[in-house]
């Protein structure tokens, strides 16, 4: 390799390492200070303890916010995924012009700042005479999660052999039967991905939750923000934060493992290996690229 090439490679590695450090250093810091035996997160460490975890679990407001966020996340995921399935089915049929328009509208939440959406929703709620409520938060979260769900489910749906549904109907299944017995099981890996992405989006979301959650029942991010004014709570918050990160990592690992297992069951080892490295939205997702290839040859995301 040339000298210039060597310098380039070294520079790239340095950049990569710095990047990883920048990304993960805050998380490592959290981990360190969650077991630090001191109410103030400073170095050097004064000892290792697990008392902050204990205190966190005794803090009703904290655990309440956590559970609330998890629950809202689950509900918003289910709603967004279900709506995304319906939207994807609609977008797979349809004429080109209608489809482009529909897609643009459905993708809007990706470009609208959540704070604008939050304010708008608040005004809407008050116009109807409803005040802040967790239902409003769930609806808001469903709206912002929907584009992600569609981006995950639609490519997978379009990669399915359209003759499979016809075959099911040819053999006597109703439209719903064909969907339930053929389409849905084949969509399963993408549904798992959709749940994950929607849950994360909802769980992390701050703007809409802060505007629309009633005062005494904050979501976890909102609680975190308000508790930053209370220094005494800080170590507990750090402890819970560490737990949430650990749980997230576990969840992602489990979901990915489950997805790969599901793909293998469906299409066999080689095709699954190809499929797993996909998952990227293809440029032809929203156009009329030819779709009629047998499932074995096609590896959907």
């Amino acid at each position: 390799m040339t000298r210039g090439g060597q310098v380039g490679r070294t520079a790239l590695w340095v950049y990569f390492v710095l990047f990883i450090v920048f990304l993960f250093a805050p998380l490592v810091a959290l981990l360190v200070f969650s077991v630090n035996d001191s109410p103030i997160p400073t170095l050097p460490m004064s000892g290792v303890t697990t008392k902050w975890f204990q205190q966190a679990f005794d803090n009703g407001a904290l655990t309440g916010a956590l559970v609330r966020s998890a629950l809202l996340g689950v509900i918003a995921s289910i709603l967004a995924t279900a709506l995304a399935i319906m939207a994807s089915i609609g977008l797979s049929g349809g004429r080109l012009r209608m489809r482009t328009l529909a897609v643009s509208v459905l993708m809007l939440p990706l470009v609208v700042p959540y704070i604008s959406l939050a304010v708008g929703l608040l005004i809407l709620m008050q116009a109807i005479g409803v005040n802040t409520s967790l239902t409003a938060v769930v609806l808001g979260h469903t709206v912002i999660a929907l584009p992600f769900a569609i981006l995950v489910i639609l490519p997978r749906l379009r990669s399915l052999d359209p003759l499979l549904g016809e075959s099911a109907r040819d053999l006597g299944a109703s439209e719903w039967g064909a969907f339930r017995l053929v389409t849905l099981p084949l969509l399963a890996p993408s549904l798992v991905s959709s749940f994950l992405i929607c849950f994360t989006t909802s769980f992390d979301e701050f703007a809409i939750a802060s505007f629309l959650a009633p005062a005494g029942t904050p979501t976890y991010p909102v609680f975190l923000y308000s508790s930053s004014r209370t220094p005494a709570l800080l170590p507990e918050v750090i402890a819970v934060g560490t737990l949430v990160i650990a749980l997230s990592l576990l969840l992602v690992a489990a979901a990915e493992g489950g997805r790969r297992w599901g793909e293998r069951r469906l299409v066999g080892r080689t095709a699954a290996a190809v499929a797993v490295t996909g998952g990227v939205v293809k440029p032809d997702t929203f156009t009329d690229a030819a779709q009629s290839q047998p499932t074995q040859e096609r590896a959907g995301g």
Partner: protein
Amino acid sequence: MASGEVSLVRLSKSFGSSVAVDGIDLQIPGGEFFSLLGPSGCGKTTTLRMIAGFEEPTSGEVRLDGDDMAGTPASRRNVHTVFQSYALFPHLTVFNNVAFGLRRQKVAREDVRRRVDEALALVELVGFARRKPAQLSGGEQQRVALARALVLRPAVLLLDEPLGALDAKLRRQLQVELKQLQEQVGITFVYVTHDQEEALTMSDRIAVMNCGRVEQVGRPREVYEEPSTAFVADFLGVSNLMDATVTKRSSAGSGASVLLGEGVQVEARAGDTHVTGPVRVVIRPERVGLEDPSGAGSANRVPGMVQRTVYLGAGTQVSVLLATGHKVTALVQNAADVDPGWTTGRPVSCHLPPAALRVLATTPPPAPGAETGSGG
């Protein structure tokens, strides 16, 4: 039990402004192996899909055993389809794939098991029940698709180029097996293909389609040896289509006198020998005789020169440029111990036997929409 008779009455299908199927009439009696043969885009698959119920006709009727199928969805017709890509459910085992239709019909468990085992035995896939489609070869997948359809005992089985995805040797083997299967089961097969050899090998009757219309319907021998239009002649193999003029129509005892060009007159006894004027003549390559040029000029023998030979194994294809300017392909069997030695550049006399020389009437340059050719 339903006999599986299919009737298509003035059946048409248009997609927007493009006409895919243009008013076809077909009668397929129960138990027949019937093929729809034609090039891509001729409307054969669209016709099949209308019989299945996946497409609604723009006009005309599809009748099964006398009943008009309008308004009956595909899931309720006693007709099942085998697709070219097999469309097996990848997440189900072979057993569950075959059992799928039976379960939709709420058949009892023991009966499901019994019938699935029977169907798998019929297509010689005993022991494959636990496998998934991805673990099967192309030929095995096709058999599962067949079993899945046949287990429901349909009156008619529709097959959309089912052998298209297989290699040549496997295809030939499965052609024979499919034909035997159809004879064994006794139901009507409607088979779509663009491969004329396949259609000739397997069918009881063939409908040759072009541009949404049926050009000829008949037994394989009829359609091959007595084509009624130039398209049918050309599609079913090498046709040696030649422009010529009938100078004297046929009379009792002799065929039509045909002027091939430049003072070369031949007699043609087959086809539209009652018309005069510009026509086209066809002759199958295996009927063309190659002889020593010393005989040129006598009855139906045209002088020419060998342009190319292609060795085919069982025979040799010899391309000859006739003195009239026409190009003719002859097929000579490699049956003799002595190689006749038709080499490039060698002069030859082409014998076109009158009984094999077929006249196809053509109309003068047609106005758009006029029909060409005449009934077979």
